[in-house]
C-alpha cells in the first residue's frame, strides 16, 4: 500500500467550491485519471482519501492538503500531473510526495492568510492591526450550526501585519493587504473572525468583501511566526531512504481504514 500526500489549490472563481463539492470532484478526477485507489472495506466501498483542514467556502487557497492510499505503486510526480490535468483549472495539484512519516495533520499547526481589503487605506489597516494586537482578548460572534457563538479571536493570532497593495492601482483606489498567521485551535479562528475582531476593536469596515487566500499551512515557529512546509519531512525521508522500503514501512502504520475528515495520518 502506497500513500501519497498532495498539495492543491483553490484559485479564482473555484474558491467558491465547498469542501463537499471538492471531495466529489476529486473522487471523480481519481476515476478519470484511472488512479489505482485502495478502497475501504464494507458494503459501499469508498476510495481511501484523507482530507485535512479544508479552507472555508469562498476563500482561496494555495495550500490545501490531502492524502490518498493506492492499491498499486505510482510515481508521485506523474500522478500529480495526471490528477492536475483531470481537475478543473483553479483546483490545481501543485505538489506530490510519497508519505514516509506519520502525522501530516499534526504538522498543520497554523495557517498563513492574506487578506486584500479594497477600499481600505494601508494606514487605516495598520491602525486597526495595532489596536487588535494590543488587546488581550477580542470577543467575536459567529453563527454556527448551534446558533450564535461567542469566542476569543485574539489568542489564536500568532502574527498580523498590514501593508499597502503592490503595484499602482490605475484608479488610485485605496487598498490594504493583511498578512495573518493563525494557530489551528478549537473552536477554529477563521480570517473572517479576525476581520470581525478588527471591526470590533478599531471599527475597520471594508466596503467590499475581503479577498482571502490561504498561502501556507505547516509547523509554526512561535519565535519568528514562520510557517514551514509540512511535506518537507517526507521529502527529507525520501532522499535518505530508497523508495520501496519506505513505502512498505509506511504501510504498517495503524488506522488506515478510517479516513475521517481532519485525520491526515494513516
Amino acid at each position, binding site marked *: 500500500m502506497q500513500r501519497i500526500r498532495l498539495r492543491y489549490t483553490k484559485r479564482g*472563481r473555484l474558491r467558491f467550491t465547498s469542501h463537499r463539492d471538492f471531495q466529489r470532484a476529486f473522487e471523480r478526477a481519481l*476515476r*478519470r485519471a484511472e488512479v489505482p485507489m485502495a478502497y475501504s472495506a464494507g458494503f459501499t466501498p469508498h476510495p481511501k482519501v484523507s482530507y485535512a483542514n479544508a479552507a472555508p467556502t469562498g476563500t482561496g487557497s494555495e495550500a490545501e492538503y490531502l492524502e490518498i492510499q493506492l492499491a498499486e505503486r505510482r510515481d508521485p510526480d506523474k500522478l500529480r500531473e495526471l490528477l492536475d490535468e483531470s481537475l478543473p483549472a483553479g483546483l490545481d495539484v501543485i505538489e506530490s510526495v510519497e508519505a514516509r512519516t506519520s502525522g501530516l495533520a499534526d504538522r498543520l499547526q497554523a495557517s498563513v492568510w492574506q487578506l486584500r481589503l479594497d477600499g481600505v487605506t494601508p494606514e487605516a489597516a495598520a491602525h486597526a492591526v495595532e489596536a487588535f494586537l494590543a488587546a488581550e482578548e477580542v470577543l467575536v460572534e459567529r453563527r454556527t450550526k448551534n446558533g450564535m457563538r461567542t469566542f476569543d479571536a485574539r489568542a489564536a493570532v500568532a502574527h498580523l501585519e498590514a501593508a499597502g497593495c503592490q503595484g499602482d492601482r490605475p484608479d488610485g483606489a485605496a487598498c490594504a493587504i493583511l498578512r495573518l498567521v493563525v494557530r489551528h485551535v478549537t473552536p477554529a479562528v477563521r480570517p473572517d473572525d479576525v476581520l470581525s475582531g478588527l471591526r470590533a476593536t478599531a471599527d475597520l469596515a471594508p466596503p467590499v468583501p475581503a479577498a482571502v487566500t490561504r498561502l501556507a499551512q505547516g509547523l509554526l515557529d512561535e519565535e519568528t511566526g514562520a510557517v514551514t512546509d509540512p511535506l518537507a519531512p517526507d521529502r527529507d525521508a525520501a532522499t535518505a531512504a530508497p523508495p520501496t522500503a519506505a513505502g512498505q514501512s509506511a504501510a504498517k502504520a495503524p488506522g488506515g481504514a478510517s479516513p475521517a475528515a481532519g485525520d491526515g495520518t494513516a
Partner: protein
Amino acid sequence: MSESVFPQLEALLPHVQKPIQYVGGELNSTVKPWESCDVRWALMYPDAYEVGLPNQGVMILYEVLNEQEGVLAERTYSVWPDLEALMREHEVPQFTVDAHRPVGAFDVLGVSFSTELGYTNLLTALDLAGIPFESKDRTDEHPLILAGGHAAFNPEPIADFLDCAVVGDGEQAVLEITEIIRAWKNEGRPGGRDELLFRLAKTGSVYVPKFYDVEYLADGRISRVVPNRSGVPWRVSKHTVMDLDEWPYPKQPLVPLAETVHERMSVEIFRGCTRGCRFCQAGMITRPVRERSITGIGEMVDKGLKATGFEEVGLLSLSSADHTEIGDIAKGLADRYEEDKIGLSLPSTRVDAFNIDLANELTRNGRRSGLTFAPEGGSERIRKVINKMVSEEDLIRTVSTAYGNGWRQVKLYFMCGLPTETDEDVLQIGDMAVKVIAEGRKVSGQNDIRCTVSIGGFVPKPHTPFQWAPQLSAEETDARLEKLRDKIRGDKKYGRSIGFRYHDGKPGIVEGLLSRGDRRVGAVIRAVYEDGGRFDGWREHFSYDRWMRAAEKTLPEFGVDVAWYTTREREYEEVLPWDHLDSGLDKDWLWEDWQDALDETEVEDCRWTPCFDCGVCPQMDTQIQIGPTGKKLLPLTVVK
C-alpha cells in the same frame, strides 16, 4: 454588450447560499470567443442549477450547438431569491454561467420547460435580463425567446411571453433555426424581428404565437385559432429525430462541482413509448419508439464514463426494461465495469417487463437498495381505464421473486384522481400493499419487509386521451387520500410495514390550470410573478393561495375561472387551446381512446401487435425503430 458581469457578480457571491452554482467552469463546459461566432444561443433551464444542470435536453443542445463552427451556446439557470435580490440591488443582469455574459446580448434565449411550474421563473429571468415580458414589446435589440420541452406542446399560457416555440425533438431543430437566424443576420436583418419570426414560422415547424389569433365563443370556449398572415401554416408540426445512433449526445456530459439531483452518466436508450398509458403525456407526444442500438449504448457509456468519472450509469427512457436487448445491455455493462465498481440504474421499469436476472445484473456492482414499480392504479378496473396493463398477479409474482432474492424494500407509485375513480379504487391501494408485505414475509421468512406507497395527484395533460377529462378537485383528492391513510394506519398486522407518502391536491390544481390553459392564463402567471411567485415546483416556495388570488383577480373579465380550466369535462366538439400544435396524434383516435377508457377497454402496444392508427407515423412520416440487433457488448481491454 457581451462583457462578462463576473466582477460585479463576484462581489455578491460571498453573501449567497451555495455560490459555486453561479461560477460555471464545469468539466466539459465550453466557452467560445464571442466574436468568432455569428449565432449565439443562451440555453435556460428555468429551475435551480442543481435541478437544471443534469437536464439531458439542455446538455444535448448545448453540445450540438457548440460543435458547430460559428455558433456558441451558453447556459443560464434560475437564480435563488437571495441572489435575485442582490442582483436587483446592484443591477447585475441575468447571466450565463459559462462566460457570465448578460442573457440580453444573445440572439436566442432557448428555454426548456419540462414542467409548467417553471413559468414564473421565466418571467424572473426576463425581468433580470432587461427583456420586456411580452413579445409585442420587444425590438431587434432583444433575443428571441424560444420555448421547448414537453410543456411546449401547449405553450398557450405563456404565448404572450414567447416569440416562438418548438415542439418535439430539439437536436435538428436548433440547427435549422440557427441557419435561418444566420441567413437573416448576414442579409442585414431585413424586415427586423418580424421578418425573422416569419421565416421561422414558414417552415411549419416553429410556432410563432403572435401570428395566430385566438377567437372565443360567448361561453368562454375557443371558437378557432387562425393564422393572421398569409404564409403561416394552420398547424405546426413536431420534430422527430429518427436515428438515435446518429445523435450520440451528450458525448461529454457536464460534471458540476456543485451537488445536483442526478450524479450519473445518463444514456437515453430509446425515445418514445407505445405502451399507451392514457395519462402519460410523455408516451403520447414522443412516438414512435426509436431504440439506440446496444453497440451505440456501449460506446456512449464507455466514452461518457471516461469523460466524467461518474460512478453510476443511468439507462434512461420512458420504460427502460422494454428495450429489445435490455438483458444483454445490462449484462454487458455489468461485466465490463465489475472491477470499477460502477453501478447501473434503470430509472423506469415496468412490473411486467421486470425479471430477476436483469435486476441481479443491475445490482451486481452496486447497492441493492430497493425496487420501484408504478402500478399507478389500485384496482384492476382503474388500471383498465388508464390502460396500464399490469395485473395484480404480475405484481405479486414480481415482488415475490424480488423478496426471495434478497430485496427487502419495494416502492409502489400510484395516482389519485384518475377519470372514473371512486374511493374504492383508491382504497384498494392499501389492499395491494398488504398483499405485497404478506408475500414478502412468506417468501423471505422475515418480518422486516417494507413497502412504501407513494401517491401523486393526477393532472390531465394535452395531447392525451384524458385531455377532455375532468380533474379531481383538491378537496376530493385530499379526502380520498385521508381515507386511504386511515385504512393503512388502522391495519394492525401490516400497517407498520407500509410507508405512505402523498402530496396534497392543491399544487395539482395549479399544474392543471397551466397544463390545459389557454392564452388568458398568461394574465394569472404574470399576476403571480408580480405577487412574488417563484420556484413553483418547490414546496417551500409554492403558494396555492397566491395562485388563487391571482386567478380571482385576472380571470373573471374573461368569464372563466380555475374550475373551468381544471375540473370541467370537455366535449368532443370543443376546440382545445393546443389543437393547432400537431403532435401527430389523430384527435379522433385520442377521442376513441378516451371512450375506450370510459368503457374500461384496453389497447395493446403497437410494437408487438398491428398498428392501431394513433396517426403519428403517417402524419410525421416516421416509423417504429427497434431491435434486436443480435449484437453483444464486448469487454473493453483495460490499458494499465
